[in-house]
């Protein structure tokens, strides 16, 4: 049995994957596209938060919200300026792939390529018997819980949330009921990008900030989606949880072979359940 530290670490890892995967699936369920630059919104969110704290002196929670709002706006601009003007899923996918290099290049120019950090945010560790957990990791877990509760409330108890679910299930029927799919897709793109940005922001004190930090969480979010089932929000959460725990536990036992084993497990899951664990519709 791995020590408790490995399980807590797995939980913290899961939180990032869950938030990232949730945002990606949300966008996919309404727009029908995978935003390949989702990881770059994570990166831009952490950079925006870095400047908010170090240059403007904005407190961490407010900076986190600012990063979310800023990237929601950028996401909407990307939707209007690029996604809406490119025809065909393949070409939209290619356009968002191109955005990866555009955003990384832009960030390299403006931010520089050197690692920077926000280690001064929430410093210190929580001692629990023989176990030490950093406040930064505790913040990641608490933040993810809050986001998930808020998203559950929004999707189940607000008109907008119900509209999102309706459009994801049947856009034509939803529009007959007077729901503006176009306007809703803008909102969803904004929420998806804000979630990625806030995931990047909450992780900024934990890991270094640089223009290339969006790649790994994006791949892991994609894996979480594949495990949970493309188009399933609950699948994204469960997929993220499984992935985070598996990653930590397998790495503890098998060291660098962890990723190989992880990918083999994903292939096995897909062979047994091609639709992922939770099928392909929003739940």
């Amino acid at each position, binding site marked *: 049995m*791995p*020590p408790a*530290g*490995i399980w807590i*670490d797995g939980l913290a*890892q899961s939180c990032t994957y869950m938030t990232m995967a949730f945002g990606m699936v949300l966008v996919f369920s309404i727009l029908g596209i995978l935003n390949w630059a989702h990881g770059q919104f994570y990166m831009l969110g952490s950079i925006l938060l870095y400047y908010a704290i170090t240059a403007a002196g904005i407190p961490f929670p407010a900076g986190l919200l600012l990063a979310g709002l800023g990237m929601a706006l950028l996401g909407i601009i990307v939707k209007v300026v690029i996604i809406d003007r490119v025809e065909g899923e393949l070409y939209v996918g290619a356009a968002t792939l191109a955005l990866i290099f555009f955003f990384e290049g832009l960030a*390299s120019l403006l931010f*520089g*390529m*050197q*690692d*920077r*950090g*926000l*280690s*001064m945010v929430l*410093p210190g*560790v929580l*001692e629990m018997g023989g176990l*030490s*957990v*950093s406040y*930064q*990791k505790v913040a990641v877990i608490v933040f993810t819980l809050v986001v998930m509760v808020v998203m559950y409330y929004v999707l189940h108890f607000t008109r907008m949330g119900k509209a999102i679910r309706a459009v994801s299930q049947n856009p034509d029927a939803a529009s007959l009921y007077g729901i503006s799919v176009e306007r809703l897709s803008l909102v969803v793109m904004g929420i998806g990008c804000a979630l990625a940005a806030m995931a990047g922001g909450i992780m900024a004190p934990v*890991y*270094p900030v*640089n223009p*290339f930090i969006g*790649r*790994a969480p994006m791949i892991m979010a994609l894996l979480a989606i594949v495990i949970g089932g493309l188009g399933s929000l609950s699948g994204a959460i469960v997929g993220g949880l499984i992935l985070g725990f598996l*990653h*930590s*536990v397998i*790495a*503890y036992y098998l*060291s*660098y072979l*962890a*990723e190989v084993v992880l990918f083999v497990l994903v292939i096995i899951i897909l062979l047994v359940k091609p639709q992922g664990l939770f099928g392909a519709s929003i739940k």
Partner: protein
Amino acid sequence: MKKQKFNFTILMVVFMFLAVSAVFTTTAFAEEPTVIKIGNISPLSGPAGPWGQAPMPGYDAFIAAMNKEGVVVNGKKYVFKLISVDDQNSPEGGARAAKRLIYEEKVKFILGHWSWNFPSVAAVTNPAKVILMTRTGNEAVPGGAYTPKKMPYTVFGTPSHERFISSIFALVKAYPDYSKVGISDSTLGKGIGWDYVDRELAKAGIRFHHEWYPPGTQDFTPYITRFKEAGCDIVFGGGDVMAAMLILKQRWEMGYKDWKIGTAGAMLDPKMYIGVSGMEASQGFISQYDANWNFKKTIVNPKYVKMCQTVQKMASDAIGKPYNYTGWIEWVPAHLQILVQAMQKANTVDDTAAIMKAIRGGTFDTVSGKYTMSGKKTYGAAVVFGNPGVMSQIKGDKEVYFSESPWTPIP
């Protein structure tokens, strides 16, 4: 009569002016040094970009300092022009950069190479008879991609693996009561080069445990736990600075605050480590150190020590802020000194075969101390031996001298 005297005076003045001008012009033309183009292939963009960019102010200032006097080979004076090309730390980028330097810029020498793309760069440089100075890696040991017959124009001018071994020696000298040294590196570096390091460490009786992680790993909790269970109290990395900063931070958060953490490679800016890992966790962080003016055991030619200090000031002036990075010293400058001294021995700047003959087995006085090239004695490769093995550590927000274990023998 008076008019005649006046005309004669004017004539004399004009004659003297012309004579003096002619002498000066001739001298100027005679002493106009010839420019030798030096190529440099480094990652200047992408995730490894900071490591390629960090030494550039040092390289530029060093070349400028060398060009003030120039170098004389076979009675002729030469200066150098450094042309750096981005390889994005990729094999195709390395080959592309080598082709551009060789076929567009017409360089005959590529120095200061350290990227993970040696085979693709060497595949371009060797057929073109261009001298490539790089570092020891998995290629430069028996069974590696390097073969002297196929790559006669390759020089392993920086002994990275040997320096790593020296660093471990310096560490255990500084902490003689250590339990076990944990060695961490990304699977990118896994190969026979590390087998060689492990063999040498075992031979020296060092207690160590090796852990590999996938490239890009950020969560080191499982690996730190494995180090703990293996009984390690020092963890030293193979040069992946981001990994080292994360191990530094995460081991502190996990409660292993007394562990000593470090990595191969020179320290960028101590403030970066403090920013990422925290002030308290960063204290004592260990790196390799190239500031030859602070060496205590390694003997460096005083002329070069002074030169490097001047270069450091020149680089600071050029970038408009203090330039504290010293990692530039062991790459282009050390390689250039090996090259220049080999050119002087061979009496040529063009005949790369003759220059290579002078390099193999030769001893060279460099900014990092005296280097002896192995020639046929070891791998059949021109591998450099003799390196300072000096380490620094973070104290407060400064990088200071820590320990030293010069590596001198030729195996």
